[in-house]
């Protein structure tokens, strides 16, 4: 799984680069618009190591942000699963906040929270949590009648149990979304750094963009890709193992 992820990423990445180089060649563009191979290598030599550590820095925010958004998404999703007024209200807040692009909210966040690690984390979580929320809501609001019936009719149903039943019945769906949300959290962390931080790969990308340095951006994208592939691969393996442990392979 892990090696396949990396290998596939390399394939995609080099396909992309080749495409760009082809455009460069056909249109006859300078290194400023699309960097050539020597320049990319030279840039990689200079920046690869630094960017790698930047990505690791970002990864910390990613992991923490993902954990927070998972917690948040489950909390809101569970609270919002009922079709009651409160449920619909919570859903509504969650939806509305999402529609505001982070770029518009950022100044408010900065006014209220100052700057530094916290807003970076907050923005990463905000970007990651909404898609998670959607899935959690979907799962949490569809009853599993044939299992829940007993607990309802005997008055034993608690919200915890309801949540557990629905989560368990949709384990593979939730696992897909949770491990998929890693990339969202990463994207969120990078955007947050891009807007706000003075560390992380997003910050480095901002600087490269200021300098119109596409070669640096390509190196950064490579580092992001390789790290996210590894993280994603690990998450997927872990989620598979957890699913197996909790469920023993289900179905006949």
């Amino acid at each position, binding site marked *: 799984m892990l090696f396949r992820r990396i290998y596939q990423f390399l394939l995609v990445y080099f396909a992309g680069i080749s495409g760009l180089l082809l455009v460069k060649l056909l249109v006859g563009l*300078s290194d400023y618009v699309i960097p050539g191979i020597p320049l990319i290598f030279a840039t990689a030599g200079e920046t690869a190591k630094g960017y790698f550590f930047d990505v690791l820095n970002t990864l910390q925010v990613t992991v923490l942000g993902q954990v927070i958004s998972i917690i948040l998404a489950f909390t809101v999703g569970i609270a919002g699963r009922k079709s009651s007024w409160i449920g619909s209200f919570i859903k509504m807040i969650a939806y509305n906040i999402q529609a505001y692009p982070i770029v518009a909210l950022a100044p408010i966040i900065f006014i209220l929270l100052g700057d530094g690690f916290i807003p970076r984390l907050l923005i990463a979580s905000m970007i990651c949590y909404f898609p998670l929320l959607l899935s959690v809501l979907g799962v949490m609001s569809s009853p599993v009648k044939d299992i829940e019936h007993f607990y309802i009719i005997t008055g034993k149903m608690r919200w915890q149990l309801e949540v557990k039943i629905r989560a368990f019945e949709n384990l593979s769906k939730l696992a897909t979304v949770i491990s998929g949300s890693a990339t969202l959290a990463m994207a969120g962390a990078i955007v947050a750094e891009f807007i*706000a931080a003075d560390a992380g790969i997003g910050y480095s990308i901002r600087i490269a963009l200021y300098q119109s340095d596409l070669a640096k951006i390509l190196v950064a994208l490579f580092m992001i890709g390789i790290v996210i592939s590894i993280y994603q691969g690990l998450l997927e393996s872990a989620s598979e193992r957890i699913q197996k442990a909790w469920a023993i392979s289900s179905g006949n």
Partner: protein
Amino acid sequence: DARELTYRLKWLFNASVAGDIYAEDKGYFTKAGLQVKIKEGGPGKDAIKEIELGQTDFGVASADQVIRALEKGAEVVVLFQIFQINPLQWIYRDTLPQITALSQLKGKSIGITFGGNDETIMNTLLAKGGIPKKDVKIYSVRFDFTPFLTKKVQIWPVYRNSQGVILKNRLQAEGENVRFLNPADFGVNFVANSVITSKKMIETDPDIVDKFQTALLAAWRDAMAPANQESTLASIAARDKDNNAAITKLQLLATRELTGTQNFGSIDKDAWIQTEQIMLQEQQIKRPVNIQDWLHK
């Protein structure tokens, strides 16, 4: 020649591009027999790239962009230099004593945009003033001004003729006055925006380039003339709906100061050479590009 030309600005439509707006609005291009469409700029726009890709014919780029592009083999030529004084300056409240010597920067909290021009310029200023980096508090600037507004940062980079005006105005409304720190006052002449085109264009269509340059220069000159102030403001107002008339007027005045009044549009060759040198020193570029060879006669 009815060939449609495009002209990509560097920034949004406002008083800082008054001459460009004026040229189109008052038909300077048409009169010169050109059909030119001007397009607004923005953070994601890069006129040099567009010129190379054939998406635009003329454009506005900052000097550092031009130098960087030249280093990487792009072939762009500077036609004329819009601002004689770089609009990129630093704003500070008048509760700070006026900065007349660079040594006064010591101990201050200063905003710089890492990777941006202001980093390069501030580094040069600090070097010039002999101030080690550890003696100032550098604050990383993002796109909003809150840290300056809340007084967390004392000296903040702005474009003198756009945000600078707005901020000054806003603070004045609250009874606070501001000053600007202009690097040129301390001998740092880092060139800002210039009008550019491709070398190829100059070689293949020198007369178009000529006509364009003449028309645009004339438009800028007229737009900056105090006599034409009202009609310039009207042209701007038609394009820039987000600033009120008072602000626009102040911005126009500020722009006029930056473009200079005598040697209008002229290329300050020494400043260009200094810019290249600064960039070399700051390792923004690795090898000299001989910028003087790329400045149009």
